[in-house]
């Protein structure tokens, strides 16, 4: 946020026309709840606009902010308190236990993926980001992205076709 231009009304219109649906899809795939995804994107958009933030890429900024919002329903103090209450029940991540309401084999498999894998899958397939870009986006190492993507593809392949991890190994992951 240190660089870039203040977002203008035209930037917002362009985002709504060209990028908004893709971003909502990504967030939906991450959190499994389209309404929550729409809310998260809208809140992020309001944030970037109403606060006069300076950003280089509105779509990228809103995607990051919306994924973060969808990722964590807790913030700050109440987040910590709730999290500690959850520890004893062995539910360390509220999102991981959230219902994933879509039907079908792919949806079930996607909903069963750990959150980190789900995020990588959504960014890779719906935003067409490379491993390097996803790493930069999520702030993790490229190797971590590859691992998450590899495991997620194995799981999804098995869900769709019942194939093995060895077959998955033969597939190429673009980096």
């Amino acid at each position, binding site marked *: *946020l*240190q660089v870039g231009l*203040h977002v203008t009304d035209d930037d*917002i*219109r362009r985002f709504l026309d060209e990028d908004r*649906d893709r971003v*909502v*899809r*990504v967030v939906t*795939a991450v959190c499994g709840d*389209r*309404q929550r995804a*729409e809310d998260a*994107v*809208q809140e992020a*958009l*309001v944030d970037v*606009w*109403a*606060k*006069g*933030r*300076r950003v280089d890429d509105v779509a990228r900024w809103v995607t990051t902010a919306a994924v973060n919002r969808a990722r*964590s329903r*807790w*913030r*700050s*103090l*109440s*987040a*910590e*308190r709730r*999290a*500690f*209450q959850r*520890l*004893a*029940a*062995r*539910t*360390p*991540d509220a999102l*991981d*236990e959230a219902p994933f309401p*879509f039907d079908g084999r*792919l949806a079930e498999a*996607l909903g069963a993926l*750990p*959150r*980190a894998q789900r995020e990588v*899958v959504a960014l890779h*397939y*719906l935003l067409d980001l490379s491993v390097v870009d996803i790493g930069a986006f999520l702030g993790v190492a490229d190797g971590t992205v590859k691992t998450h993507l590899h495991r997620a*593809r194995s799981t*999804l*392949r098995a869900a*769709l*076709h019942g194939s093995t991890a060895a077959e998955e190994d033969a597939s*190429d992951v*673009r980096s």
Partner: protein
Amino acid sequence: MSDLDHEIRRGLERLTDPAGASGPLTFDRVAARRRQRRIRRAALAALPAIALLAIVAGVMTRDAGGRVDIATGEDTDVSSPSGTDGAVTVQRTEVLGGDGGTARVVMEFDGPLPGREIRYSDDVPAGGAGDAILYTIQDAGSVQVCDSVHSFPPPAEGTVDFFIPADWFADGVDTHTSPLETIANPAKFVSCGPHDGYFQYSTWGPVSVDRSDVAIAVDPDGRRLTVQIGPPPTQFGDEVIPFGSPTLDQAGADAAQSVVTAFLADLRDGDLTSAAQRWSGYPELGPDAPPAERIPYIEELLSDPAFTRILGAGTEIVVTPSWGFSTAAPVVTVLAPRHGDDPPVAVAFLVGGLEQDPETVWIHRLPATGDGSMQGLAGSRVEPGQEIVIPGVPIEGGARAFVGRDEIPVAVDLENSTMAITVPEGVDGDIAVTISTATPELPGADAFAVTVGSP
């Protein structure tokens, strides 16, 4: 791209297809929200034209000299206020946490403040600089911090904000880099400005925001400003209490040490299944992930030569509280002392689950390894009084540092994304330094070992 990739992509697009979903976001809805904020600003100023000018002025000053306040994620202007005779600089800011939120803020200056008058303001001041320190209370649902509006979830009811005229500060002063000491887990302390003629200091998280709970005063010599929220500080004491309520009790510390000891014993025995069951899987895996899915992460730990040092004999274990608000998860630090040419090693485990049932205690965060850890600092020889600079800063809130069991001050440099500690006097030999940092979720924890004194 393989057929599988195409299939996954098509499937995801179908799953997330907006058809049939709620109505699309329209530009008007966004614009309406922005208008609401403008209206609110106008109401605050009781003069819409002035309020709009203030917004424009804020944007312009950020363009001129903006940088990011990491605590809020906002741009904050650091351009110099106009200097005046007798202007001061901030030498130190101390923020003390209490049961229910921030309890006290103390600011110390290098000279007497130009004014001593303190006034309550019904709203965030707008419309230009004044000649007095102002303070106000904001509802947690809408906290205005210079140009930004934040919200703060329950149980907090609001914030206490105080405002010091910008022209009281010496020309060129950057109040954001003055030393900030956080004690006993204050929720959050944010500064920004100059904005509308003031620097704003926002104290987040008091459970009570009744005006009568706030006492603000300047010492007779004018060099010290104290903002007291709620009961007087004698209830909390000035000393850091690592194992006292509300941070961490001894039973919790003992339980945390036990689970880590058992985890390490499992690793020594090669029983990775048992070890995996002592780890929550956070943050990589879901809570129901079977041990088979957790074991690879344990194996990754075991592939780190630094980590395996703590499986040897002669290790020391200490338990310290992490950064927290009313609760603090214990951090269990294991120190393997220097052995021949091998430097000392320390790693940290964040442990959770103490509040409801001690029987369900488990490791919440495994130690960081490799480049993601502080091990780059390990093995150094240092002297008492020497400063150690540590990469990284807390995402929200603050940081705590311990040498062994003793808490030491940690200075957070948001501008350079580093933290700094000073090796205390009176320590010698191999020591473990444990750092915990606040995050929006659970605290982060890491440790490293250094040797104090000559070989």
